Protein backbone atom coordinates (compact mmCIF):
# COMPACT_ATOMS: atom_id res chain seq x y z
CA UNK A 1 0.00 0.00 0.00
CA UNK A 2 2.92 2.34 0.59
CA UNK A 3 4.83 1.57 -2.54
CA UNK A 4 2.40 2.60 -5.21
CA UNK A 5 1.38 5.70 -3.32
CA UNK A 6 4.93 7.00 -3.08
CA UNK A 7 5.17 7.72 -6.77
CA UNK A 8 8.85 8.50 -6.89
CA UNK A 9 9.80 5.39 -5.01
CA UNK A 10 12.12 4.14 -7.63
CA UNK A 11 14.85 1.79 -6.61
CA UNK A 12 17.54 4.45 -6.43
CA UNK A 13 15.84 7.19 -4.42
CA UNK A 14 18.16 6.75 -1.47
CA UNK A 15 19.22 10.38 -1.67
CA UNK A 16 16.01 11.63 -0.12
CA UNK A 17 16.02 9.12 2.69
CA UNK A 18 16.94 10.45 6.10
CA UNK A 19 19.82 8.95 8.00
CA UNK A 20 18.01 6.85 10.64
CA UNK A 21 15.69 5.37 8.08
CA UNK A 22 18.63 4.57 5.95
CA UNK A 23 20.38 2.86 8.82
CA UNK A 24 17.27 0.84 9.44
CA UNK A 25 17.11 -0.03 5.79
CA UNK A 26 20.71 -1.11 5.84
CA UNK A 27 20.05 -3.39 8.77
CA UNK A 28 17.14 -4.75 6.82
CA UNK A 29 19.37 -5.27 3.83
CA UNK A 30 21.89 -7.20 5.80
CA UNK A 31 19.25 -9.28 7.50
CA UNK A 32 17.33 -9.84 4.31
CA UNK A 33 20.51 -10.91 2.51
CA UNK A 34 20.24 -8.74 -0.53
CA UNK A 35 16.53 -7.95 -0.50
CA UNK A 36 15.91 -5.71 -3.46
CA UNK A 37 12.56 -4.26 -2.54
CA UNK A 38 11.68 -0.80 -3.75
CA UNK A 39 12.70 1.89 -1.31
CA UNK A 40 10.30 4.20 0.39
CA UNK A 41 10.81 7.85 1.20
CA UNK A 42 10.90 8.94 4.83
CA UNK A 43 7.27 10.02 5.25
CA UNK A 44 6.09 6.51 4.73
CA UNK A 45 7.74 4.89 7.70
CA UNK A 46 4.71 5.77 9.82
CA UNK A 47 2.42 4.16 7.33
CA UNK A 48 4.74 1.19 7.17
CA UNK A 49 4.67 0.88 10.94
CA UNK A 50 0.93 1.10 10.79
CA UNK A 51 0.55 -1.62 8.17
CA UNK A 52 0.57 -4.66 10.54
CA UNK A 53 -1.90 -2.88 12.81
CA UNK A 54 -4.23 -2.29 9.89
CA UNK A 55 -4.15 -6.02 9.20
CA UNK A 56 -4.96 -7.04 12.80
CA UNK A 57 -7.41 -4.18 13.35
CA UNK A 58 -10.59 -6.05 12.41
CA UNK A 59 -9.95 -9.14 14.49
CA UNK A 60 -8.64 -7.09 17.39
CA UNK A 61 -11.60 -4.70 17.36
CA UNK A 62 -14.09 -7.57 17.57
CA UNK A 63 -12.05 -9.18 20.33
CA UNK A 64 -11.91 -6.02 22.41
CA UNK A 65 -15.53 -5.09 21.80
CA UNK A 66 -17.23 -8.45 22.34
CA UNK A 67 -14.86 -10.15 24.78
CA UNK A 68 -12.80 -7.69 26.80
CA UNK A 69 -15.28 -4.83 27.08
CA UNK A 70 -18.02 -7.12 28.48
CA UNK A 71 -15.47 -8.81 30.73
CA UNK A 72 -14.44 -5.44 32.16
CA UNK A 73 -18.07 -4.48 32.59
CA UNK A 74 -18.66 -7.68 34.55
CA UNK A 75 -16.28 -6.36 37.20
CA UNK A 76 -18.06 -3.01 37.21
CA UNK A 77 -21.59 -4.46 37.41
CA UNK A 78 -20.51 -6.88 40.12
CA UNK A 79 -20.06 -4.09 42.66
CA UNK A 80 -23.46 -2.53 41.92
CA UNK A 81 -27.06 -3.54 42.52
CA UNK A 82 -28.03 -3.03 38.86
CA UNK A 83 -31.16 -4.79 37.58
CA UNK A 84 -30.26 -4.47 33.91
CA UNK A 85 -32.80 -1.74 33.10
CA UNK A 86 -32.40 1.06 35.60
CA UNK A 87 -30.42 4.07 34.47
CA UNK A 88 -28.67 4.39 37.81
CA UNK A 89 -26.40 1.78 39.29
CA UNK A 90 -25.82 1.99 43.02
CA UNK A 91 -22.43 1.05 44.36
CA UNK A 92 -22.79 -1.73 46.91
CA UNK A 93 -19.18 -2.72 47.46
CA UNK A 94 -18.52 -6.42 47.87
CA UNK A 95 -22.06 -7.31 48.95
CA UNK A 96 -22.68 -9.39 45.82
CA UNK A 97 -19.52 -11.41 46.38
CA UNK A 98 -20.45 -12.00 49.99
CA UNK A 99 -23.81 -13.31 48.79
CA UNK A 100 -22.22 -15.66 46.27
CA UNK A 101 -20.33 -17.40 49.06
CA UNK A 102 -22.92 -17.22 51.85
CA UNK A 103 -26.35 -17.49 50.22
CA UNK A 104 -26.99 -21.26 50.27
CA UNK A 105 -29.26 -20.92 47.24
CA UNK A 106 -26.30 -19.68 45.21
CA UNK A 107 -23.57 -21.60 46.91
CA UNK A 108 -25.21 -25.04 46.84
CA UNK A 109 -25.07 -25.21 43.03
CA UNK A 110 -21.31 -25.59 43.26
CA UNK A 111 -21.87 -29.12 44.52
CA UNK A 112 -23.80 -30.06 41.38
CA UNK A 113 -20.49 -29.73 39.53
CA UNK A 114 -19.12 -32.66 41.52
CA UNK A 115 -21.35 -35.08 39.59
CA UNK A 116 -19.90 -33.86 36.32
CA UNK A 117 -16.39 -33.91 37.72
CA UNK A 118 -16.80 -37.58 38.66
CA UNK A 119 -18.38 -38.12 35.26
CA UNK A 120 -15.32 -36.73 33.55
CA UNK A 121 -13.13 -39.31 35.30
CA UNK A 122 -15.35 -42.07 33.95
CA UNK A 123 -15.21 -40.42 30.57
CA UNK A 124 -11.43 -40.33 30.54
CA UNK A 125 -11.13 -43.93 31.69
CA UNK A 126 -13.43 -45.13 28.88
CA UNK A 127 -11.66 -42.92 26.35
CA UNK A 128 -8.24 -44.17 27.43
CA UNK A 129 -9.33 -47.80 27.23
CA UNK A 130 -10.72 -47.49 23.70
CA UNK A 131 -7.84 -45.31 22.51
CA UNK A 132 -5.37 -47.94 23.71
CA UNK A 133 -7.03 -50.93 22.12
CA UNK A 134 -7.72 -49.07 18.88
CA UNK A 135 -4.11 -47.98 18.61
CA UNK A 136 -3.20 -51.62 17.92
CA UNK A 137 -4.27 -53.01 14.59
CA UNK A 138 -7.94 -53.83 14.72
CA UNK A 139 -10.54 -54.80 12.17
CA UNK A 140 -12.96 -51.99 11.29
CA UNK A 141 -10.65 -49.60 13.12
CA UNK A 142 -11.97 -46.53 11.32
CA UNK A 143 -15.57 -47.59 11.78
CA UNK A 144 -15.20 -48.01 15.53
CA UNK A 145 -13.26 -44.79 15.80
CA UNK A 146 -15.96 -42.94 13.87
CA UNK A 147 -18.80 -44.39 15.95
CA UNK A 148 -17.15 -43.59 19.27
CA UNK A 149 -16.27 -40.09 18.19
CA UNK A 150 -19.47 -39.05 16.42
CA UNK A 151 -21.55 -38.03 19.50
CA UNK A 152 -19.13 -35.18 20.11
CA UNK A 153 -20.21 -33.53 16.85
CA UNK A 154 -23.96 -33.73 17.44
CA UNK A 155 -25.98 -30.61 18.19
CA UNK A 156 -26.52 -30.18 21.93
CA UNK A 157 -30.28 -29.71 21.62
CA UNK A 158 -30.55 -32.93 19.61
CA UNK A 159 -28.56 -34.77 22.29
CA UNK A 160 -30.85 -33.31 24.93
CA UNK A 161 -33.92 -34.68 23.16
CA UNK A 162 -32.29 -38.05 22.46
CA UNK A 163 -31.67 -38.51 26.17
CA UNK A 164 -35.00 -37.05 27.30
CA UNK A 165 -36.51 -39.78 25.13
CA UNK A 166 -34.17 -42.42 26.55
CA UNK A 167 -34.86 -41.49 30.16
CA UNK A 168 -38.61 -40.94 30.00
CA UNK A 169 -40.78 -43.16 32.23
CA UNK A 170 -41.51 -46.37 30.35
CA UNK A 171 -38.94 -45.33 27.73
CA UNK A 172 -35.95 -47.11 26.26
CA UNK A 173 -33.90 -47.37 29.42
CA UNK A 174 -36.80 -48.68 31.52
CA UNK A 175 -37.73 -51.21 28.83
CA UNK A 176 -34.19 -52.54 28.72
CA UNK A 177 -33.90 -52.67 32.50
CA UNK A 178 -37.12 -54.70 32.56
CA UNK A 179 -35.31 -57.42 30.56
CA UNK A 180 -32.97 -57.77 33.49
CA UNK A 181 -35.79 -57.92 35.99
CA UNK A 182 -35.79 -54.30 37.15
CA UNK A 183 -39.52 -53.68 37.30
CA UNK A 184 -39.54 -50.55 39.41
CA UNK A 185 -37.04 -48.16 37.84
CA UNK A 186 -36.60 -44.69 39.36
CA UNK A 187 -37.65 -41.42 37.73
CA UNK A 188 -34.38 -40.73 35.96
CA UNK A 189 -34.99 -37.02 35.55
CA UNK A 190 -37.75 -36.46 38.10
CA UNK A 191 -35.99 -37.69 41.21
CA UNK A 192 -33.65 -35.04 42.68
CA UNK A 193 -31.35 -37.77 44.03
CA UNK A 194 -30.82 -39.27 40.60
CA UNK A 195 -31.27 -36.47 38.08
CA UNK A 196 -27.67 -35.26 38.28
CA UNK A 197 -26.30 -38.75 37.70
CA UNK A 198 -28.50 -39.09 34.61
CA UNK A 199 -27.35 -35.73 33.29
CA UNK A 200 -23.69 -36.43 34.06
CA UNK A 201 -24.12 -39.75 32.23
CA UNK A 202 -25.46 -37.89 29.21
CA UNK A 203 -22.47 -35.60 29.38
CA UNK A 204 -20.13 -38.63 29.45
CA UNK A 205 -21.88 -40.01 26.35
CA UNK A 206 -21.42 -36.69 24.59
CA UNK A 207 -17.79 -35.90 25.38
CA UNK A 208 -16.03 -39.29 25.59
CA UNK A 209 -15.43 -39.17 21.84
CA UNK A 210 -13.36 -36.01 22.10
CA UNK A 211 -11.08 -37.39 24.82
CA UNK A 212 -10.83 -40.63 22.90
CA UNK A 213 -9.66 -38.97 19.67
CA UNK A 214 -7.17 -36.78 21.52
CA UNK A 215 -5.71 -39.77 23.40
CA UNK A 216 -5.62 -41.82 20.22
CA UNK A 217 -3.73 -39.06 18.42
CA UNK A 218 -1.21 -38.85 21.24
CA UNK A 219 -0.71 -42.62 21.29
CA UNK A 220 -0.24 -42.75 17.55
CA UNK A 221 2.46 -40.10 17.73
CA UNK A 222 4.61 -42.54 19.72
CA UNK A 223 7.11 -43.98 17.20
CA UNK A 224 6.10 -47.40 15.85
CA UNK A 225 9.61 -48.78 16.26
CA UNK A 226 9.29 -48.59 20.02
CA UNK A 227 6.40 -51.05 20.00
CA UNK A 228 8.26 -53.34 17.65
CA UNK A 229 11.32 -53.26 19.87
CA UNK A 230 9.19 -53.98 22.93
CA UNK A 231 7.48 -56.83 21.11
CA UNK A 232 10.82 -58.34 20.17
CA UNK A 233 11.89 -58.09 23.78
CA UNK A 234 8.83 -60.08 24.71
CA UNK A 235 6.92 -57.33 26.49
CA UNK A 236 3.25 -58.06 26.99
CA UNK A 237 0.57 -55.61 25.87
CA UNK A 238 0.07 -54.67 29.51
CA UNK A 239 3.78 -53.94 29.93
CA UNK A 240 3.76 -52.00 26.68
CA UNK A 241 0.93 -49.88 28.00
CA UNK A 242 2.69 -48.93 31.22
CA UNK A 243 6.18 -48.59 29.76
CA UNK A 244 5.39 -46.90 26.45
CA UNK A 245 1.88 -45.63 26.02
CA UNK A 246 1.24 -44.21 29.45
CA UNK A 247 4.40 -42.08 29.63
CA UNK A 248 3.76 -40.94 26.08
CA UNK A 249 0.32 -39.59 26.87
CA UNK A 250 0.75 -38.67 30.53
CA UNK A 251 0.81 -35.02 29.60
CA UNK A 252 -2.47 -35.00 27.69
CA UNK A 253 -4.12 -37.04 30.43
CA UNK A 254 -2.92 -34.54 33.00
CA UNK A 255 -4.20 -31.65 30.95
CA UNK A 256 -7.56 -33.36 30.53
CA UNK A 257 -7.86 -33.86 34.29
CA UNK A 258 -7.22 -30.22 34.95
CA UNK A 259 -9.55 -29.11 32.19
CA UNK A 260 -12.19 -31.36 33.77
CA UNK A 261 -12.30 -29.02 36.75
CA UNK A 262 -13.19 -25.91 34.79
CA UNK A 263 -15.32 -28.04 32.47
CA UNK A 264 -17.37 -29.37 35.40
CA UNK A 265 -17.92 -25.86 36.72
CA UNK A 266 -19.01 -24.53 33.34
CA UNK A 267 -21.58 -27.25 32.57
CA UNK A 268 -24.54 -25.63 30.93
CA UNK A 269 -26.14 -27.00 27.78
CA UNK A 270 -27.16 -30.52 28.78
CA UNK A 271 -28.99 -29.63 32.04
CA UNK A 272 -30.41 -26.39 30.62
CA UNK A 273 -31.91 -28.15 27.60
CA UNK A 274 -33.07 -31.29 29.37
CA UNK A 275 -34.40 -30.10 32.72
CA UNK A 276 -34.02 -26.33 32.65
CA UNK A 277 -32.31 -26.67 36.01
CA UNK A 278 -35.35 -28.21 37.72
CA UNK A 279 -35.21 -30.80 40.54
CA UNK A 280 -31.90 -29.57 41.86
CA UNK A 281 -30.06 -29.96 38.57
CA UNK A 282 -29.21 -26.26 38.19
CA UNK A 283 -25.49 -25.76 37.65
CA UNK A 284 -23.52 -22.66 38.49
CA UNK A 285 -23.82 -21.32 34.95
CA UNK A 286 -27.58 -21.95 34.80
CA UNK A 287 -27.96 -20.18 38.13
CA UNK A 288 -25.94 -17.21 36.86
CA UNK A 289 -28.00 -16.92 33.69
CA UNK A 290 -31.29 -17.18 35.57
CA UNK A 291 -30.16 -14.62 38.13
CA UNK A 292 -29.38 -12.20 35.33
CA UNK A 293 -32.21 -12.76 32.89
CA UNK A 294 -35.08 -14.21 34.95
CA UNK A 295 -34.59 -12.55 38.33
CA UNK A 296 -33.03 -9.38 36.86
CA UNK A 297 -30.18 -9.22 39.35
CA UNK A 298 -27.43 -8.31 36.93
CA UNK A 299 -25.15 -7.17 39.77
CA UNK A 300 -25.26 -10.47 41.59
CA UNK A 301 -25.03 -12.45 38.35
CA UNK A 302 -21.95 -10.48 37.34
CA UNK A 303 -20.32 -11.30 40.66
CA UNK A 304 -21.06 -14.98 40.00
CA UNK A 305 -19.54 -14.69 36.52
CA UNK A 306 -16.44 -13.04 37.97
CA UNK A 307 -16.09 -15.83 40.54
CA UNK A 308 -16.28 -18.43 37.77
CA UNK A 309 -13.74 -16.52 35.72
CA UNK A 310 -11.41 -16.35 38.73
CA UNK A 311 -11.68 -20.09 39.31
CA UNK A 312 -10.94 -20.83 35.65
CA UNK A 313 -7.92 -18.53 35.72
CA UNK A 314 -6.60 -20.14 38.91
CA UNK A 315 -7.04 -23.60 37.43
CA UNK A 316 -5.18 -22.55 34.29
CA UNK A 317 -2.43 -21.05 36.40
CA UNK A 318 -2.17 -24.32 38.37
CA UNK A 319 -1.93 -26.14 35.05
CA UNK A 320 1.05 -23.99 34.11
CA UNK A 321 2.70 -24.84 37.41
CA UNK A 322 2.07 -28.56 37.19
CA UNK A 323 3.09 -28.69 33.52
CA UNK A 324 5.70 -25.95 33.30
CA UNK A 325 7.09 -27.04 29.94
CA UNK A 326 3.71 -26.63 28.29
CA UNK A 327 4.81 -23.72 26.17
CA UNK A 328 2.43 -21.83 24.01
CA UNK A 329 4.87 -20.94 21.31
CA UNK A 330 2.84 -18.98 18.86
CA UNK A 331 5.04 -16.23 17.59
Amino acid at each position, binding site marked *: *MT*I*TASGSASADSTAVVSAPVRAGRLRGLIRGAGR*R*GPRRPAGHTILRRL*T*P*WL*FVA*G*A*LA*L*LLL*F*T*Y*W*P*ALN*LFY*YSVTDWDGIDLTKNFVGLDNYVRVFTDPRVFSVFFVSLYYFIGSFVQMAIALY*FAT*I*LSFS*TRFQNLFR*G*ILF*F*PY*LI*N*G*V*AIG*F*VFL*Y*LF*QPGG*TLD*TMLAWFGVTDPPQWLGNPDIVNWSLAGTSV*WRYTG*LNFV*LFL*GAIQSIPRELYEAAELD*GASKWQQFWALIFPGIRRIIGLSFILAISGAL*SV*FEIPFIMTGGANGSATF*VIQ*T*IQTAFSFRQ*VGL*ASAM*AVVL*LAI*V*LIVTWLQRIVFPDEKVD*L*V
Partner: protein
Amino acid sequence: MTTETVRTPGPRHRSGLTPLNRVRSMSATSAKYLSLILGALFTLLPLSVVLFASFKTKQEYGTTGPLTPPSNWLNFDNFATAFTSGKMLEGFINTTIVLVLSLIGTIILGTMAAYAIDRFPFRGKKLVMGLFLIATLIPSVTSQVATFQLVNAIGLYDTKTALVLLFMGTDIIAIYLFIQFMQSIPISLDEAAMIDGANRWTIYWRVILPLLKPAIATVVIIKGIAIYNEFYAPFLYLPSEGLISTSLFRFKGPFGAQWEVIAAGTILVIVPTLVAFLLLQRWIYRGLMAGAVK
Protein backbone atom coordinates in the same frame (compact mmCIF):
# COMPACT_ATOMS: atom_id res chain seq x y z
CA MET B 1 15.88 -60.95 32.57
CA THR B 2 18.97 -60.85 30.41
CA THR B 3 18.76 -60.03 26.76
CA GLU B 4 19.76 -63.57 25.86
CA THR B 5 16.77 -65.22 27.46
CA VAL B 6 14.37 -62.62 26.15
CA ARG B 7 15.61 -62.56 22.59
CA THR B 8 15.49 -66.28 21.97
CA PRO B 9 11.76 -66.80 22.37
CA GLY B 10 11.16 -63.91 19.99
CA PRO B 11 11.04 -65.79 16.65
CA ARG B 12 9.33 -68.80 18.19
CA HIS B 13 6.75 -66.53 19.68
CA ARG B 14 5.75 -65.59 16.12
CA SER B 15 5.89 -68.91 14.32
CA GLY B 16 4.10 -71.10 16.81
CA LEU B 17 2.41 -70.18 20.07
CA THR B 18 2.10 -72.65 22.87
CA PRO B 19 -1.50 -73.86 23.24
CA LEU B 20 -1.95 -71.95 26.49
CA ASN B 21 -0.72 -68.72 24.90
CA ARG B 22 -2.96 -69.21 21.91
CA VAL B 23 -6.01 -69.59 24.12
CA ARG B 24 -5.00 -66.55 26.08
CA SER B 25 -4.47 -64.39 23.01
CA MET B 26 -7.73 -65.60 21.46
CA SER B 27 -9.70 -64.74 24.56
CA ALA B 28 -7.93 -61.37 24.75
CA THR B 29 -8.91 -60.70 21.16
CA SER B 30 -12.52 -61.66 21.75
CA ALA B 31 -12.65 -59.50 24.87
CA LYS B 32 -11.29 -56.63 22.84
CA TYR B 33 -13.88 -56.98 20.07
CA LEU B 34 -16.65 -57.60 22.57
CA SER B 35 -15.83 -54.36 24.37
CA LEU B 36 -15.65 -52.48 21.08
CA ILE B 37 -19.05 -53.79 20.06
CA LEU B 38 -20.47 -52.91 23.46
CA GLY B 39 -19.06 -49.41 23.17
CA ALA B 40 -20.53 -49.01 19.70
CA LEU B 41 -23.91 -50.28 20.95
CA PHE B 42 -23.93 -47.83 23.86
CA THR B 43 -23.21 -45.03 21.43
CA LEU B 44 -25.69 -46.03 18.75
CA LEU B 45 -28.62 -47.31 20.78
CA PRO B 46 -29.89 -43.91 22.03
CA LEU B 47 -29.76 -42.62 18.46
CA SER B 48 -31.36 -45.69 16.91
CA VAL B 49 -34.45 -45.61 19.11
CA VAL B 50 -35.00 -41.97 18.16
CA LEU B 51 -34.68 -42.97 14.51
CA PHE B 52 -37.27 -45.72 15.08
CA ALA B 53 -39.68 -43.28 16.71
CA SER B 54 -39.34 -40.75 13.92
CA PHE B 55 -40.88 -43.15 11.37
CA LYS B 56 -43.80 -44.25 13.52
CA THR B 57 -47.36 -42.97 13.23
CA LYS B 58 -48.93 -41.41 16.29
CA GLN B 59 -50.99 -44.52 16.93
CA GLU B 60 -48.08 -46.85 16.31
CA TYR B 61 -45.93 -44.84 18.69
CA GLY B 62 -48.54 -45.25 21.41
CA THR B 63 -48.91 -49.01 21.01
CA THR B 64 -45.37 -50.24 20.33
CA GLY B 65 -42.32 -50.24 22.59
CA PRO B 66 -39.38 -47.92 21.93
CA LEU B 67 -37.15 -50.77 20.77
CA THR B 68 -39.62 -52.00 18.14
CA PRO B 69 -38.63 -50.85 14.64
CA PRO B 70 -41.31 -48.93 12.74
CA SER B 71 -43.65 -50.91 10.48
CA ASN B 72 -43.17 -48.52 7.59
CA TRP B 73 -39.65 -47.13 7.03
CA LEU B 74 -41.00 -44.76 4.39
CA ASN B 75 -43.41 -42.88 6.60
CA PHE B 76 -42.07 -39.34 6.29
CA ASP B 77 -45.14 -37.59 7.74
CA ASN B 78 -43.36 -36.65 10.98
CA PHE B 79 -40.51 -35.09 9.05
CA ALA B 80 -42.97 -33.04 7.02
CA THR B 81 -44.69 -31.88 10.21
CA ALA B 82 -41.37 -30.98 11.78
CA PHE B 83 -40.31 -29.08 8.67
CA THR B 84 -43.48 -27.05 8.27
CA SER B 85 -45.23 -26.48 11.60
CA GLY B 86 -42.00 -26.93 13.54
CA LYS B 87 -40.36 -24.16 11.48
CA MET B 88 -37.31 -26.32 10.82
CA LEU B 89 -37.09 -24.94 7.29
CA GLU B 90 -36.81 -21.40 8.65
CA GLY B 91 -34.18 -22.66 11.07
CA PHE B 92 -32.09 -24.21 8.32
CA ILE B 93 -32.28 -21.09 6.17
CA ASN B 94 -31.36 -18.76 9.04
CA THR B 95 -28.55 -21.03 10.17
CA THR B 96 -27.15 -21.09 6.63
CA ILE B 97 -27.22 -17.29 6.37
CA VAL B 98 -25.53 -16.78 9.74
CA LEU B 99 -23.06 -19.59 9.08
CA VAL B 100 -21.93 -18.30 5.68
CA LEU B 101 -21.58 -14.67 6.78
CA SER B 102 -19.72 -15.47 9.99
CA LEU B 103 -17.38 -17.90 8.26
CA ILE B 104 -16.48 -15.38 5.54
CA GLY B 105 -15.85 -12.77 8.22
CA THR B 106 -13.79 -15.11 10.38
CA ILE B 107 -11.65 -16.25 7.47
CA ILE B 108 -10.88 -12.76 6.21
CA LEU B 109 -10.21 -11.21 9.62
CA GLY B 110 -8.37 -14.30 10.86
CA THR B 111 -6.05 -14.65 7.86
CA MET B 112 -5.35 -10.91 7.91
CA ALA B 113 -4.41 -11.03 11.57
CA ALA B 114 -2.25 -14.10 11.00
CA TYR B 115 -0.56 -12.37 8.06
CA ALA B 116 0.33 -9.39 10.22
CA ILE B 117 1.60 -11.57 13.04
CA ASP B 118 3.66 -13.90 10.88
CA ARG B 119 5.08 -11.52 8.28
CA PHE B 120 5.68 -8.26 10.17
CA PRO B 121 7.93 -7.55 13.10
CA PHE B 122 6.03 -5.01 15.19
CA ARG B 123 5.88 -3.82 18.72
CA GLY B 124 2.95 -5.20 20.67
CA LYS B 125 2.80 -8.47 18.75
CA LYS B 126 3.22 -10.52 21.92
CA LEU B 127 0.49 -8.48 23.58
CA VAL B 128 -1.93 -9.10 20.71
CA MET B 129 -1.28 -12.82 20.82
CA GLY B 130 -1.70 -12.81 24.58
CA LEU B 131 -5.06 -11.07 24.29
CA PHE B 132 -6.31 -13.68 21.83
CA LEU B 133 -5.00 -16.48 24.05
CA ILE B 134 -6.49 -15.23 27.33
CA ALA B 135 -9.84 -14.60 25.64
CA THR B 136 -10.35 -18.36 25.26
CA LEU B 137 -10.29 -18.71 29.05
CA ILE B 138 -13.24 -16.39 29.65
CA PRO B 139 -16.30 -18.63 30.15
CA SER B 140 -18.50 -17.66 27.24
CA VAL B 141 -21.95 -18.33 28.66
CA THR B 142 -21.60 -16.42 31.92
CA SER B 143 -20.00 -13.41 30.24
CA GLN B 144 -23.21 -13.07 28.19
CA VAL B 145 -24.55 -11.32 31.30
CA ALA B 146 -22.49 -8.30 30.24
CA THR B 147 -22.33 -8.98 26.49
CA PHE B 148 -26.11 -8.86 26.39
CA GLN B 149 -26.09 -5.30 27.76
CA LEU B 150 -23.65 -4.26 25.03
CA VAL B 151 -25.59 -5.91 22.19
CA ASN B 152 -28.75 -4.34 23.53
CA ALA B 153 -27.14 -0.90 23.85
CA ILE B 154 -25.92 -0.83 20.24
CA GLY B 155 -29.39 -1.81 19.05
CA LEU B 156 -28.54 -5.25 17.68
CA TYR B 157 -30.78 -7.27 20.00
CA ASP B 158 -33.00 -9.68 18.07
CA THR B 159 -31.04 -9.33 14.81
CA LYS B 160 -28.98 -11.86 12.92
CA THR B 161 -26.22 -9.24 12.73
CA ALA B 162 -25.59 -9.67 16.45
CA LEU B 163 -25.01 -13.38 15.98
CA VAL B 164 -22.77 -12.89 12.94
CA LEU B 165 -20.64 -10.38 14.85
CA LEU B 166 -20.40 -12.63 17.91
CA PHE B 167 -19.45 -15.68 15.85
CA MET B 168 -17.01 -13.69 13.72
CA GLY B 169 -14.71 -13.10 16.66
CA THR B 170 -11.69 -15.11 15.52
CA ASP B 171 -10.38 -17.50 18.10
CA ILE B 172 -6.79 -18.33 18.84
CA ILE B 173 -7.07 -21.81 17.34
CA ALA B 174 -7.99 -20.43 13.93
CA ILE B 175 -5.23 -17.83 14.05
CA TYR B 176 -2.76 -20.46 15.21
CA LEU B 177 -3.71 -22.77 12.33
CA PHE B 178 -3.27 -19.94 9.84
CA ILE B 179 0.10 -18.88 11.28
CA GLN B 180 1.36 -22.44 11.30
CA PHE B 181 0.39 -22.90 7.68
CA MET B 182 1.71 -19.50 6.65
CA GLN B 183 5.14 -20.36 8.04
CA SER B 184 5.39 -23.04 5.36
CA ILE B 185 4.82 -20.47 2.60
CA PRO B 186 8.30 -19.19 1.63
CA ILE B 187 8.91 -15.48 2.21
CA SER B 188 10.63 -15.34 -1.16
CA LEU B 189 7.16 -15.43 -2.70
CA ASP B 190 6.25 -12.21 -0.87
CA GLU B 191 9.54 -10.66 -1.93
CA ALA B 192 9.11 -11.64 -5.54
CA ALA B 193 5.68 -10.05 -5.56
CA MET B 194 7.09 -6.94 -3.91
CA ILE B 195 9.69 -6.60 -6.65
CA ASP B 196 6.88 -6.75 -9.16
CA GLY B 197 5.47 -3.71 -7.40
CA ALA B 198 2.75 -5.39 -5.37
CA ASN B 199 1.77 -3.69 -2.14
CA ARG B 200 1.12 -5.51 1.12
CA TRP B 201 -2.59 -5.85 0.54
CA THR B 202 -2.07 -7.30 -2.93
CA ILE B 203 0.45 -9.78 -1.53
CA TYR B 204 -2.01 -10.85 1.13
CA TRP B 205 -4.97 -11.05 -1.21
CA ARG B 206 -3.31 -12.50 -4.33
CA VAL B 207 -0.43 -14.56 -2.95
CA ILE B 208 -1.02 -15.60 0.66
CA LEU B 209 -4.77 -16.08 0.82
CA PRO B 210 -5.02 -18.50 -2.14
CA LEU B 211 -2.16 -20.57 -0.72
CA LEU B 212 -3.88 -20.83 2.66
CA LYS B 213 -6.75 -22.91 1.26
CA PRO B 214 -6.02 -26.10 3.25
CA ALA B 215 -5.87 -24.20 6.55
CA ILE B 216 -9.02 -22.29 5.60
CA ALA B 217 -10.80 -25.57 4.90
CA THR B 218 -9.90 -26.89 8.35
CA VAL B 219 -11.08 -23.73 10.07
CA VAL B 220 -14.31 -23.66 8.05
CA ILE B 221 -15.12 -27.22 9.08
CA ILE B 222 -14.29 -26.89 12.77
CA LYS B 223 -15.87 -23.47 13.18
CA GLY B 224 -18.81 -24.39 10.94
CA ILE B 225 -19.70 -27.34 13.16
CA ALA B 226 -19.34 -25.19 16.26
CA ILE B 227 -21.68 -22.51 14.87
CA TYR B 228 -24.19 -25.08 13.63
CA ASN B 229 -24.31 -26.54 17.14
CA GLU B 230 -24.36 -23.24 19.01
CA PHE B 231 -27.44 -23.03 21.17
CA TYR B 232 -27.21 -20.30 23.76
CA ALA B 233 -26.29 -17.31 21.59
CA PRO B 234 -29.29 -17.68 19.23
CA PHE B 235 -31.51 -18.54 22.19
CA LEU B 236 -30.55 -15.30 23.94
CA TYR B 237 -30.08 -12.87 21.06
CA LEU B 238 -32.62 -13.95 18.44
CA PRO B 239 -35.85 -14.81 20.24
CA SER B 240 -38.19 -13.99 17.35
CA GLU B 241 -36.48 -16.14 14.72
CA GLY B 242 -35.18 -19.66 14.89
CA LEU B 243 -31.78 -21.03 14.10
CA ILE B 244 -31.54 -24.78 13.82
CA SER B 245 -30.81 -25.30 17.53
CA THR B 246 -33.49 -22.94 18.77
CA SER B 247 -36.13 -24.17 16.30
CA LEU B 248 -35.61 -27.66 17.63
CA PHE B 249 -35.56 -26.46 21.23
CA ARG B 250 -38.96 -24.82 20.78
CA PHE B 251 -40.44 -28.25 19.93
CA LYS B 252 -40.57 -28.71 23.69
CA GLY B 253 -43.73 -26.64 24.03
CA PRO B 254 -46.19 -27.39 21.20
CA PHE B 255 -45.01 -30.95 20.51
CA GLY B 256 -44.46 -31.78 24.17
CA ALA B 257 -46.43 -35.00 23.96
CA GLN B 258 -45.74 -35.84 20.31
CA TRP B 259 -42.47 -37.66 20.65
CA GLU B 260 -42.60 -38.99 17.09
CA VAL B 261 -42.45 -35.40 15.74
CA ILE B 262 -39.70 -34.38 18.18
CA ALA B 263 -37.78 -37.48 17.12
CA ALA B 264 -38.13 -36.51 13.46
CA GLY B 265 -36.90 -33.00 14.21
CA THR B 266 -33.93 -34.39 16.13
CA ILE B 267 -33.00 -36.70 13.26
CA LEU B 268 -33.29 -33.79 10.81
CA VAL B 269 -30.75 -31.84 12.85
CA ILE B 270 -28.36 -34.80 13.14
CA VAL B 271 -28.37 -35.82 9.45
CA PRO B 272 -26.35 -32.83 8.13
CA THR B 273 -23.76 -33.42 10.87
CA LEU B 274 -23.54 -37.08 9.91
CA VAL B 275 -23.10 -36.25 6.22
CA ALA B 276 -20.43 -33.66 7.03
CA PHE B 277 -18.65 -36.14 9.28
CA LEU B 278 -18.66 -38.93 6.69
CA LEU B 279 -17.32 -36.64 3.97
CA LEU B 280 -14.81 -34.65 6.01
CA GLN B 281 -13.55 -37.07 8.69
CA ARG B 282 -9.88 -36.53 8.07
CA TRP B 283 -10.17 -32.72 8.21
CA ILE B 284 -12.20 -32.89 11.41
CA TYR B 285 -9.69 -35.07 13.23
CA ARG B 286 -6.84 -32.87 12.02
CA GLY B 287 -8.55 -29.70 13.17
CA LEU B 288 -9.22 -31.17 16.61
CA MET B 289 -5.63 -32.23 17.06
CA ALA B 290 -4.45 -28.78 16.05
CA GLY B 291 -6.79 -27.26 18.61
CA ALA B 292 -5.64 -29.59 21.35
CA VAL B 293 -1.93 -28.97 21.04
CA LYS B 294 -2.26 -25.21 20.96
